[in-house]
């Protein structure tokens, strides 16, 4: 059985929990002492395979358990990979800001939030352009792991004081994502939008 070393507050852990829920896959959850303890999360164990990178975990789960191939479509693999990379860099700034604002991590919150706003603007513009082409999701024709990799960083930005009032395309997109069968939230992601 799949096992996930998990931390309830981690945006990266939530990405994996969300995908497992959307795939309706049972798994064994092991709580890690990521805060205050500093254990690294998430870690996915699938037989002999041990994966620590959220993007690699999403890709592995897609290849192994999504027989329809809709979450990582071959035709859009390069675009998906590009957004996985952005989720791990530009957008991860939002989660870094969250660690500073909520968990007392070292860092300059004002600078991180400024970068975070720029990342949200880029994402909002991308989603708005996609809508002009009649597309609801970040890549391709349906939801992919690109959407899932981005979603937690964006949705948890409230924790560092960044609201979504200025990002209407993000708002519409996140509402679509919440309606997916099997969707699960996490503390800090408001239920009321």
């Amino acid at each position, binding site marked *: 059985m799949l096992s996930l070393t*998990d*931390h*309830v*507050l981690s945006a990266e852990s939530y990405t994996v929990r969300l995908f497992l829920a959307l795939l309706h896959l049972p798994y064994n959850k092991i*709580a*890690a*002492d990521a*805060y*205050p*303890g500093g*254990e690294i999360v998430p870690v996915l164990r699938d037989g002999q395979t041990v994966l620590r990178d959220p993007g690699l975990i999403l890709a592995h789960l897609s290849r192994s358990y999504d027989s329809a191939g809709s979450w990582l479509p071959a035709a859009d693999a390069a675009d998906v990979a590009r957004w996985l990379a952005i989720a791990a860099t530009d957008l991860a700034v939002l989660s870094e800001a969250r660690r500073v*604002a*909520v*968990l*007392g991590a070292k860092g300059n919150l004002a600078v991180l939030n400024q970068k975070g706003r720029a990342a949200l603007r880029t994402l909002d513009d991308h989603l708005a352009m996609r809508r002009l082409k009649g597309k609801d999701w970040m890549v391709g024709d349906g939801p992919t792991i690109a959407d899932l990799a981005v979603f937690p960083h964006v949705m948890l930005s*409230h*924790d560092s*004081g960044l609201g979504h009032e200025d990002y209407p395309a993000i708002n519409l997109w996140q509402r679509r994502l919440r309606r997916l069968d099997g969707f699960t939230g996490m*503390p*800090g992601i*408001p239920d009321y939008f």
Partner: protein
Amino acid sequence: MSVEAAALDQWYTLGALRDFPQGESRRRLLGTDLAISHIGDRFSVGDLPVRTDYGHLWTSLGTPRPLFDIPEVHEADRRRVYCGAVTVRASGLRLIENFLDLAHFPYVHSDVLGVEERPEVARYEVEQRRDVDELWATKCEFFQPRAAASAEGGQISQYMYRVVTPFNVMLYKTPPTAPNRWDMVALFVQPVEPDLSIAHPYMLVIDDSSTEAELVGFQQMIFLQDKIVLENQRPRLLPLQPGRETPTRADLSSVLYRRWLKEKQLRYGVEEPAAFA
């Protein structure tokens, strides 16, 4: 901003002892920056009074009475669990009041500490114990589908609450594993600014089945569910004048808490009445 004696003359935690590195570190309390020195197992905060009880560093900016007692800390079979400090953009008094509230369980902690089908708060008792200057709420009961990290299936949980200072509170609840004893969960609040607080949850529990990370994870999940609500409450500061917020029967402990703060003339984290005169 000048801080009133009622707030200065209290003990406040600055964090768990183990979170202070050797040497100098800095914390902020009641709008004042503090330099903490940790050398060997000795702590000092300038020339302020210092205590190291309950695994936490305590100080005061005024002349406090003796630090409150937590007798459960001496019971050998209890596990001491530090849940990690969490910063919340809200008045510390709002944090304490939320901690005292049973009625939000089914809605904020749905399917964990309550279910929407059973929202009723049974009648409970509150009292101000004048001899020790503490507030107590007793005989509280609530149906909980998952009362603690070790819970399997629902139970009617018994609760007691004990407010020892305006910014320090603890609750006692029946643990799923030892129904004849009480788990203790404390919430020590470090008011940084009137509307910015650091919460230091600390547990003394009877649970030999959950791992440390499971206990911490459970408490953090509950706390983060509260955080988003706390940060969206308006006014940000706690109003004490009647009529600004309307309590119901279930808010008896909150009514007593607010009355007690008023009696103490506490103003830090309290909404200025003048703004609405």
